[in-house]
């Protein structure tokens, strides 16, 4: 047994031993230990190095407020930096490392930074590194050289670079009452609400529910408080309207009483169960919340207060009572309030010698003096610690007479040899969650603490959170809050009897002992009291300026211990009262949250995949798949040894030579049904649809309200009141919302139903000289000749025993047909077509060939309808009906939209027979060295097998007027320059003789 482990007591399981490593050295501890308690028990005093000065640091706290003892946890190659050792439960095989030290924790070269202290005081970097005005280091160069070193010196832990395989999950929960904090107040609140039948969730960030009852040493209803709490927890566990969430930090209080909580599900296990996540991110929608988050102890500010061995009094008490660990053998206590006396007592009972209690207050109540007597200690009222000494371990302190009213010290300093100093600067209620909405905390002079703001959401508070610092008040308030939360009236409450140590709440308004030496306010960030005063001198006097100028409160602990002392020192410098200075803004998260948990199930799988009905066929037949939004689509069906260009050229030639087939299932399909369906279409399309005959389709163009082009596609009239609209793949969702908006908001009088039927239909477009013959060979129940199926006609029939709907329309420019069938039959119909088409030379083709054929035809897609072009720019003005208003018609003729210099659609032919690049620009005068004078850019390009040339579509200033003129492609990014000719965008078969057949 290590010298620091107490003989008995504590809520650890001494019967079992756990082995773990810290910085490569093997240690052991017990179930119930944290990494901090286990290391302390092993006599470790040095845990880490501070951020700026690399000062040696030990453990300050015992919980979530720890600023110093940060470690990196390793899980295989995955790294979790900056975890407070106080929040790590040990398990067999745990591997932890210290941080921010080189080469080792005990010998760190950067500790020389301490010498440069005054030089690198708050904000020093703003005042220097501006560099020379001329020469190679001018401008920002000099700063960037210096910055490299600063960056290397800064930072705490190291992040991993190997993907983390751990599982993270999200969970949605609903409840009547969420109780945050399972101390005496929270436990009582949960019980009261549960008894009224409310659905209750009780969350606490600690593994062991019970809060301070686990270490207060008090007696409740005749039982040690910890046992009382354990019994209460058991009662709650037994009822099924309560969910207990230990290891769960409620970290965010969002709108609508939505709270975010992080459950550390399996961090404490060596081997998580199968499928068990590491972290679970809870989103809890609570009708009401009980905030019972307790209070956090504050340090005192005096020289050397950061030495390993200087610890918060409450933390030490907790180590002794909850973990059976003695933070020191020779202990002094330094306080401005009564609560630390209990800590002295606890440590005394656990076997330490209490050398002295140094209290800034000159007058101490008889109760407390009496109580101190039991700790067999020297009492030093009206004294202060003016120095804590030692390096990696505390060796002693210096004490001087202190006058609290004037804040001055007097008399000779006296040295006291101790290996541990407990300090208490009073308590700050953990009001973070209540304050996240931005409401102002209220300063309480008696308690010297900020109390919760007025509720901005539906919560009630209880216990130390409200400033009620005694257990009987906490329990009383907890009960009342539990009832109030489920709108139950107050009833008779048998409050338990409590035996507690004496002590009044509140503390003396002493935050700093102002003597020479480095006195730390923000431990992790090395912000000293002098830094606060420097900020004051330089005019950074608003608390928010103070924070930003010194980085006070910006470390991983977010100033849980440091904020109040910091602003108190600023208030003193300004000669103002603390509430006039105010606090900085509270923000989520309450304590740091793993990014993995926030990504939840999306870690490793960002978005779902959308697959067409024929997806597996494409894969089986050699398709290279292309991610288009969420969809996967065949890019090419490459043959062995083919380049992409060779493949699409072959597929294009095959289609234009014989026949080709392409999966068009991804096209957006919207059923537009009802008596006013045609009317709606007339209003949203630029052209007329009410005149369309049943059994016919029409190409349509939609504009946005602002008159710019929005989307295009064909719409099929399947019945008098029944249309099937198709949209581009990318815009399917947007068009759907566009229509729904108009129907709901603008034209509620229209009787139209809009339904997304994209997934109902499998679609295959089959085109080419043999397309009709292939269909004729397999379609039953209808003819497909010109008479039965003219251009833009629709017929119904069967292929392979499956009902199909066929529309004759063409994107490829060939005689082509779109064949639609029920999606579950898509593969069957596709395979039938392939089978029947084989003797006709039918080839499947992908997006590249599709793109090639549309470029040859000059059809536009999203690359041209890019939200900045008008119908005129795209030469679609023939579609703008003059007979009716339509969405966008009023705005489409604004001066900027009809200007002569607008970018308009043209064709481009490469004159040097080299490929063109998408995104290349077009210039009139080539200047490779200093490119300028862009007149437009290429939107889509390909090798055109039909023309035997590299061609492109482009948007170019002036457009049509340039047809036949020479220009250059200018693509400095890819070093591609060369002559081009600007031509009409109709490259191929402009009369459409092929598709009309």
């Amino acid at each position, binding site marked *: 047994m290590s010298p620091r482990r107490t003989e008995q007591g504590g809520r650890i399981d001494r019967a079992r031993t756990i082995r773990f490593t810290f910085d490569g050295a093997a240690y052991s501890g017990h179930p119930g230990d944290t990494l901090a308690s286990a290391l302390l028990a092993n006599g470790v005093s040095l845990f880490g190095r501070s951020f700026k000065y690399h000062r040696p640091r030990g453990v300050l706290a015992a919980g979530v407020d720890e600023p110093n003892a940060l470690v990196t946890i390793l899980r295989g190659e995955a790294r979790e930096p900056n975890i407070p050792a106080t929040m790590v439960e040990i398990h067999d095989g745990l591997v932890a490392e210290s941080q921010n030290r080189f080469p080792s924790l005990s010998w760190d070269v950067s500790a020389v930074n301490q010498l440069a202290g005054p030089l690198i005081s708050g904000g020093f970097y703003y005042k220097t590194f501006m560099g020379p005005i001329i020469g190679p280091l001018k401008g920002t160069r000099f700063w960037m050289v210096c910055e490299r070193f600063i960056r290397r010196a800064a930072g705490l832990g190291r992040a991993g670079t190997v993907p983390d395989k751990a599982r993270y*999950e*999200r*969970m*949605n*929960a*609903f409840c009547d009452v969420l109780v945050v904090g399972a101390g005496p107040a929270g436990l009582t609140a949960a019980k009261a609400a549960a008894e009224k039948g409310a*659905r209750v969730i009780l969350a606490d960030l600690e593994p062991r529910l019970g809060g301070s009852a686990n270490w207060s040493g008090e007696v409740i209803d005749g039982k040690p408080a910890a046992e009382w709490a354990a019994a209460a927890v058991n009662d709650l566990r037994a009822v099924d309207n309560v969910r207990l969430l230990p290891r769960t930090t409620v970290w965010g209080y969002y709108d609508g009483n939505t709270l975010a909580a992080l459950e550390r599900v399996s961090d404490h296990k060596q081997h998580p*169960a*199968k*499928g*068990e*996540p590491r972290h679970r991110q809870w*989103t809890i*929608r609570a009708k009401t919340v009980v905030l019972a988050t307790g209070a956090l102890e504050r340090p005192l500010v005096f020289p050397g207060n950061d030495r390993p061995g200087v610890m918060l009094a409450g933390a030490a008490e907790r180590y002794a009572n909850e973990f059976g660990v003695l933070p020191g053998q020779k202990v002094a206590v330094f306080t401005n309030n009564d609560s630390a006396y209990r800590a002295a007592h606890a440590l005394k009972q656990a076997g330490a010698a209490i050398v002295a209690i140094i209290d800034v207050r000159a007058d101490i109540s008889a109760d407390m003096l009496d109580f101190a007597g039991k700790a067999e200690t020297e009492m030093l009222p009206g004294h202060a610690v003016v120095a804590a000494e030692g390096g990696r371990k505390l060796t002693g302190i210096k004490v001087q007479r202190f006058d609290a009213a004037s804040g001055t010290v007097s008399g000779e300093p006296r040295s006291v040899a101790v290996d541990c100093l407990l300090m208490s600067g009073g308590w700050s209620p953990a009001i973070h969650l209540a304050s996240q909405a931005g409401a102002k905390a209220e300063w309480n002079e008696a308690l010297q603490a900020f109390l919760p703001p007025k509720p901005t959401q539906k919560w009630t508070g209880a216990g130390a959170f409200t400033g009620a610092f005694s257990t009987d008040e906490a329990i009383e308030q907890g009960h009342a809050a539990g009832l109030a939360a489920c709108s139950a009236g107050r009833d008779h409450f048998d409050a338990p009897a409590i035996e507690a140590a004496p002590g009044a709440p509140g503390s003396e308004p002493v935050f700093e002992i102002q003597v020479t030496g480095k006195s730390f306010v923000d431990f992790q960030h090395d912000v000293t009291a002098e830094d606060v005063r420097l900020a004051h001198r330089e005019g950074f006097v608003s608390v928010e300026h103070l924070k930003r100028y010194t980085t006070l409160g910006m470390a991983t602990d977010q100033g849980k211990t440091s904020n109040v002392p910091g602003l108190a020192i600023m208030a003193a410098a300004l000669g103002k009262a603390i509430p006039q200075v105010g606090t900085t803004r509270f923000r989520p998260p309450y304590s740091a949250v793993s990014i993995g948990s926030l990504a939840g*199930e*999306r870690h490793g*799988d960002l*978005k*779902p*995949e*959308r*697959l*067409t*009905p024929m997806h*597996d066929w494409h894969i089986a037949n050699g398709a290279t798949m292309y991610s288009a939004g*969420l*969809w996967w689509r065949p890019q090419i069906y490459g043959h062995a040894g083919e380049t992409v260009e060779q493949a699409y050229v072959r597929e294009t030639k095959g289609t234009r030579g014989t026949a080709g087939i392409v999966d068009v*299932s991804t096209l957006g399909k919207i*059923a537009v*049904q*009802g*008596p006013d369906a045609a009317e709606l279409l007339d209003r949203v399309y630029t052209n007329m649809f009410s005149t369309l005959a049943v059994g016919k389709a029409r190409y349509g163009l939609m504009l946005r309200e602002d008159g710019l082009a929005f989307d295009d596609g064909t719409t099929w009239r399947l019945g008098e*009141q029944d249309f099937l609209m198709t949209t581009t793949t990318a815009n399917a969702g947007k068009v759907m919302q566009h229509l729904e908006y108009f129907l709901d908001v603008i034209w509620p009088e229209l*009787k139209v*139903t809009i*339904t*997304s*039927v*994209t*997934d*109902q*239909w*499998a679609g295959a477009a089959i085109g080419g000289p043999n397309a009709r013959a292939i269909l004729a060979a397999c379609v039953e129940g209808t003819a497909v000749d010109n008479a039965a199926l003219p251009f833009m006609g629709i017929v119904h029939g069967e292929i*392979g*025993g*499956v*009902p199909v709907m066929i529309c004759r329309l063409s994107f490829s420019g060939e005689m082509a047909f779109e064949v639609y069938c*029920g*999606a*579950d*039959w*898509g*593969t*069957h119909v596709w395979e039938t077509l392939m089978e029947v088409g084989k003797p006709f030379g039918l080839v499947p083709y992908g997006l590249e060939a599709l793109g090639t054929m549309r470029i040859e035809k000059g059809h536009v897609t999203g690359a041209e309808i890019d939200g900045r072009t008008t119908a005129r720019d795209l030469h679609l003005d023939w579609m703008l009906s003059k007979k009716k208003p339509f969405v966008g018609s009023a705005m489409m003729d604004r001066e900027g939209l009809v200007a002569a210099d607008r970018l308009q659609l043209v064709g481009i032919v490469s004159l040097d027979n080299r490929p063109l690049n998408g995104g290349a620009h077009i210039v009139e005068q080539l200047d490779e060295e200093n490119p300028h004078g862009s007149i437009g850019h290429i939107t889509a390009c390909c090798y055109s097998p039909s023309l035997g040339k590299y061609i492109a579509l482009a948007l170019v200033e002036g457009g049509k007027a340039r047809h036949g003129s020479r220009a250059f492609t200018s693509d400095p990014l890819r070093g591609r320059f060369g002559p081009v000719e600007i031509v009409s965008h109709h490259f191929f078969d402009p009369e459409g003789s092929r598709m009309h057949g």
Partner: protein
Amino acid sequence: MARSIEIERLSPLAQVYRAGPHGNFEDGVGVALSEPRPGSIVQLAAWPGEERRMIDAIRTVTGLALPDGAGGGVSEGGKAAFGFAPGKFTVVDEKDGLAAAFAKAITPAIGTVTDLSHGRTVIRIEGPEAEWVLAKFFAIDFSLAAFPLGAGRSTTHHDVFAQIQRTGPDRFDVHVFRSFARSFWTALCHGSEEVGYEVA
């Protein structure tokens, strides 16, 4: 599609549907996952004021008597129906032919019928942990009090739109777009591993 089609329908889940127990099942499975594969799914939309007649038509065609109220529904004897939006209903039948039957019963004066038999994939999750697993995906309250038997809910998991009907005390039918079905199924299986699951 009045007559039955002989050709087998291909489920989007076929490639990933692996019958048997999975995940942490050693101490029993928390949920069973399956694909009921109904013969027909239709969506019905009533014009404002015609909801009553629509509900009557549903009863005439399917024999299902829908309760009043938003999201109300029933599920019995291989058929199910529920409201999913104002005046809008999803009706499911293990047999095909529902769209044709409704096309006769619902006149243009009442509303519209849209066949989605192929467009939606129904995934069934059943068992003591069904609520727990679904709560990993959807931000709605699955407790019986908030989500009564037979009721339907429209909701989403990120990009995946879903209509969910409670078809048993611990059974839910989740309707998703067919194109997303495989992805969602895979995610659902993944999320079920913790409680152990069996694919029926």
